[in-house]
């Protein structure tokens, strides 16, 4: 950061898991809002660089980080495709004076200064299970359709759900399958679930690709109203299924807020302040506390259903 | 009488290569016209022009007294022209019937009429070889049968003009005779026939007229009556050539190679013979008699399953070409383009390939040593080239064959197997190859020469082994060999 000449803006790079994902576009939007807010409050001029690979491969994200290092950006905020593989390049970025933080999906501790989680794993897991229990009135067979078998946050949410199952004695978790974040594979896996468990009540899909594919599969199988889909997804992508009734309700955190907080936090880091064990004020969002490992949480996920989906779908 | 087809001043170049400069040719109904010329004289190019496969750069073509431009193969067919090409035009994966009607399939509306195609194929094949089932996949036929299918194709569309580009190059005596009978019948039906061949005895036996090309230009045509082969050759090459096979008398030494009861499933069995220092063993038979297969067994590229090979008194096992080369055996294969030459590599690289061990040191190439190895051989064989770095692709067929022979001479073989060494090459090149065989024999090399040309076998070989359907019918010494006896052994059970 010392290399920054006078008058040059602070350049904060927001790296998405993959480009073209509505979630990250909303993060970008929030980041731009924060940059404008900071500037109008008389703070640094901030340039937000929004970038990322086109698919969710870790190597491609490394290439993106290398390019950002070469551009001497001031801060990198990343939603990691792989918590471990990115560590070496993130370390290198930090060696070259770049502040690295993670959001949404973490890089292992040694690869970043701070991690801003959307919500705690517990909160996400709880939300999914509660929604599932809600959909089937507390009794029935439940299956999980996840993204790739290697995606960190999905796996920790699934772990949280499994830990929480005793709280919902009526729910019977029959299996966990993986759609690899590919719509055709997710669709096929969902169809297989319907065939294999004819009395299935709920499919929990904690990924936006999976939840839409599962909803489509349930709909195509003519099981709307018999099998419910729930989980985590973007309002804009789930809107159709919610209208139809395939999805009664689902949850998601607010990506605009995440982007907003990311830029505020990164800006603080660039100024040489903040760090693990501190509390950073994220503008209008208020203070966010980071523990000694540098983990902080933005807040609980929000639940959407037929009543408020239309409004949310316009946003992200 | 007016010619049905007449070509004048026809020219064609490929890039910068002038294949034809002023081709001239007249074809008459009810006559067989022979087209003669050295390799590369432009004969096949002319055929391609007449059949619409390539377009002439200049000159005029007159059909029935009217000038025509032959646009495409389809157009040529509609004009009543059909051809048996020099290159095999066969489709292994298709049925015999489709191969016959590959151009002009019978149609019903716009869809292919399979039943008619089968029926007509069966009719045409009935007189050629009734044992061929038109529904069979062509790949399952023998070599001779494949030739018949191509002949059947030329007959299938009732053409007025039938062109045959070296149809006998790969045929044996008996099959050639069958073809001649058909050709005479076509002639008597009033068709015009163009017959291209390098074999003068065929030309004199079959043809009524001749036309000679030299270096892409027509240098004379007329009736064959009163012409001698000497005069034709002089026309072809512009100088007289010694056409007689220059058999050298060589003292025959001790046995070099002996095979005993070689056999391979379905292909041949109980094949035994020997060959001595300085001897040329001719191997004669009809196409598909299994001669090449036996040669591949000696060379290790298709090892025999039974029997043994004895080299210089020791039983050896030869299971690959490397082993054969290490034992001092060389093979000039029958299929020059596919098995013999690397067309896209330089002449020098071709010549040194089987003997790379000699020109490299510790696996490293040496341009100087390669040149020292290849240059004298290329010169000795009279390869017409611009240099050792020229690609073999750019050479004429005869010169390609010389390169293939040179590459085997470079290995200094003790036994040299030549499978159809003069197939499709012109008289001049042929004489050179024969002279070379004599010289090699004189140096003590044992030579096995597979040939389907009876005069060549009779002229060159010290002993002649005759094969028929995978079995050795006998080995005849030169002194006892007569054409009748050899042909009878090759054809009769």
């Amino acid at each position, binding site marked *: 950061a010392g290399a920054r000449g006078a008058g040059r803006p602070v350049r904060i790079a927001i790296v998405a898991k993959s480009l073209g994902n509505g979630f990250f576009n909303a993060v970008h939007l929030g980041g731009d809002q924060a940059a404008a807010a900071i500037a109008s409050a008389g703070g640094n001029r901030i340039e937000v660089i929004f970038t990322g690979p086109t698919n969710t491969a870790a190597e491609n994200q490394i290439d993106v980080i290398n390019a950002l290092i070469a551009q001497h950006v001031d801060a990198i905020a990343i939603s990691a495709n792989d918590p471990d593989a990115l560590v070496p390049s993130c370390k290198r970025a930090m060696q070259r004076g770049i502040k690295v933080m993670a959001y949404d999906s973490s890089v292992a501790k040694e690869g970043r200064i701070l991690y801003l989680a959307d919500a705690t794993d517990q909160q996400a897991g709880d939300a999914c299970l509660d929604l599932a229990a809600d959909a089937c009135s507390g009794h029935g067979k439940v299956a999980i359709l996840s993204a790739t078998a290697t995606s960190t946050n999905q796996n920790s949410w699934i772990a949280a759900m499994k830990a929480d199952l005793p709280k919902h004695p009526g729910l019977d978790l029959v299996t966990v399958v993986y759609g690899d974040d590919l719509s055709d594979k997710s669709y096929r896996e969902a169809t297989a679930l319907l065939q*294999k468990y004819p009395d299935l009540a709920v499919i929990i899909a904690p990924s936006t690709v999976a939840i839409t594919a599962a909803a489509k599969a349930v709909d195509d199988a003519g099981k709307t109203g018999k099998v419910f889909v729930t989980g985590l997804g973007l309002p804009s992508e789930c809107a159709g299924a919610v209208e139809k009734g395939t999805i009664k309700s689902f949850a998601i955190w607010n990506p605009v807020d995440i982007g907003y907080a990311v830029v505020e936090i990164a800006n603080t880091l660039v100024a040489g302040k903040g760090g693990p064990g501190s509390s950073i004020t994220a503008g209008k969002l208020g203070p966010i506390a980071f523990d000694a490992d540098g983990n902080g949480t933005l807040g609980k996920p929000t639940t959407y259903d037929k009543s408020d989906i239309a409004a949310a779908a316009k946003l992200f | 009488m007016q010619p049905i087809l007449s070509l004048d001043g026809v020219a064609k170049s490929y890039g910068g290569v002038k294949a034809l400069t002023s081709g001239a040719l007249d074809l008459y109904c009810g006559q067989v016209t022979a087209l003669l010329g050295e390799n590369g004289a432009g004969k096949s190019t002319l055929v391609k022009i007449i059949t619409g496969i390539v377009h002439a750069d200049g000159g005029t073509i007159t059909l029935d007294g009217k000038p025509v431009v032959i646009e495409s*193969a389809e157009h040529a067919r509609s004009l009543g022209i059909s051809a048996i090409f020099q290159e095999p035009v066969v489709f292994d994966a298709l049925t015999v019937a489709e191969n016959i009607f590959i151009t002009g399939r019978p149609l019903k509306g716009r869809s292919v009429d399979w039943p008619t195609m089968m029926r007509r194929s069966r009719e045409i094949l009935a007189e050629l070889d009734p044992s061929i089932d038109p529904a069979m996949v062509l790949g399952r036929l023998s070599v001779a049968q494949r030739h018949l299918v191509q002949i059947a194709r030329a007959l299938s569309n009732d053409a007025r003009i039938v062109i045959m580009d070296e149809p006998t190059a790969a045929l044996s005596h008996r099959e050639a005779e069958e073809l001649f009978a058909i050709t005479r019948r076509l002639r008597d039906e009033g068709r015009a026939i163009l017959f291209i061949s390098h074999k003068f005895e065929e030309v004199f036996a079959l043809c009524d007229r001749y036309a000679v090309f030299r270096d892409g230009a027509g240098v004379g045509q007329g009736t064959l009556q009163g012409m001698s082969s000497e005069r034709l050759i002089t026309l072809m090459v512009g100088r007289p050539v010694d056409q007689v096979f220059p058999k050298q008398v060589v003292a025959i030494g001790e046995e070099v190679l002996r095979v005993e009861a070689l056999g391979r499933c379905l292909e041949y069995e109980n094949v035994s013979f020997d060959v001595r220092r300085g001897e040329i063993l001719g191997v004669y038979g009809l196409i598909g008699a299994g001669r090449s297969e036996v040669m591949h067994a000696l060379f290790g590229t298709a090892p025999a399953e039974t029997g043994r090979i004895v080299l210089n008194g020791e039983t050896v096992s030869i299971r690959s070409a490397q082993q054969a080369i290490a034992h001092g055996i060389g093979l000039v294969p029958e299929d020059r383009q596919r098995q013999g030459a690397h067309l896209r590599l330089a002449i020098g690289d071709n010549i040194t390939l089987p003997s790379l061990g000699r020109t490299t040191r510790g696996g490293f190439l040496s341009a100087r040593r390669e040149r020292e190895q290849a240059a004298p051989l290329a010169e000795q064989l009279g390869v017409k080239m611009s240099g050792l770095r020229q690609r073999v692709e750019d050479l004429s067929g005869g010169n390609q064959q010389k390169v293939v022979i040179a590459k085997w001479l470079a290995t200094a073989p003790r036994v040299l197997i030549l499978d159809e060494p003069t197939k499709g090459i012109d008289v001049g090149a042929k004489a050179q190859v024969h002279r070379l065989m004599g010289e090699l024999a004189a140096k003590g090399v044992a030579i096995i020469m597979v040939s389907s040309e009876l005069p060549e076998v009779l002229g060159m070989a010290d002993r002649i082994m005759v094969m028929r359907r995978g079995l050795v019918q006998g080995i005849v010494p030169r002194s006892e060999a007569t054409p009748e006896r050899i042909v009878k052994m090759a054809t009769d059970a």
Partner: protein
Amino acid sequence: MPESFLRLLRTREAGLLGLNLLLLAAIAPFFPAFLRPGSLAGLLDDTALLILLALGEMLVLLTRGVDLSIAANLAFTGMVVALLDQYHPGLGLAPVLILSVLMGAALGAVNGLLVWRLRIPSIVVTLGTLSIYRGAVYLASGGRWVNSNQMSPQFLAFVRLQLGGVSMLSWIAIACAVLVALFLRRSVRGRDLYAAGNNPSAALYAGIDVGVMQFSAFLIAGAIAGLCGYLWVSRYAVAYTDVASGFELQVIAACVIGGVSISGGVGSVAGVVLGALFLGIIKNALPLVGVSPFFQMAVSGVVITGAVLINARGTQASALRILERRPA
């Protein structure tokens, strides 16, 4: 005709059919419901896209080419028609269908022209256009996804239309298979396609323009891929950059298992359909039979490798008989 029936039994297609039935029989004890008509219709529905693409790929393989760009073509065309539908939902289905076929054909024609006019090996051409078309999806959409709620109802409904218990998607695949089979068996151009691939240099002498044949194959393959673009996007109700990424290799695998020779001139529609179904059965059965998701890929790998190995055994030329048959 018992003899021609016997001959039919010995064909590769019959063997493949047997293999497919065997596979179904092996699955039955684990999961009997898989053999219910509804499940089988679902299997066909799920394999229809693979069948369609494999039919196009087969034409290219027959002419000794290979088309690596079909999946990218599918993604590009699919995205374009999805965007069209999103912004002009009132247009109805016909323009979407026409556009998808035409655009796919145009993308195929680019491949075909480069192969035909410039004689660039098809693997090189389609390796290049694979990247270009895939990138074009991103450029066309700005990386955005088009989701089901952004698609018009008729856009989504068409492929799901049920006729006689079978979806429209399956019917399209069946119709396409019949058309390609008729084209290859009955039309002059179809037969020329085989000849051109079987022996290109000989085809030249037979007056068959090998380049035009290659071009036609790419054109048709492209048109089919374009149609599949719409079908895919509509079936999975989503369009994004990575749609069907890497699918081209599965398509080639289906062709090869179906007996299409990579060196041209050999292959049949029946074989290709059975080859695609073979892969489809495996893909659909593995999750059902309860193979761990982590083992599914390895199992597919073993099966595909095994199938191509067995296939190669079958195609090896046997020795020509030279020796006369003698009474035993």
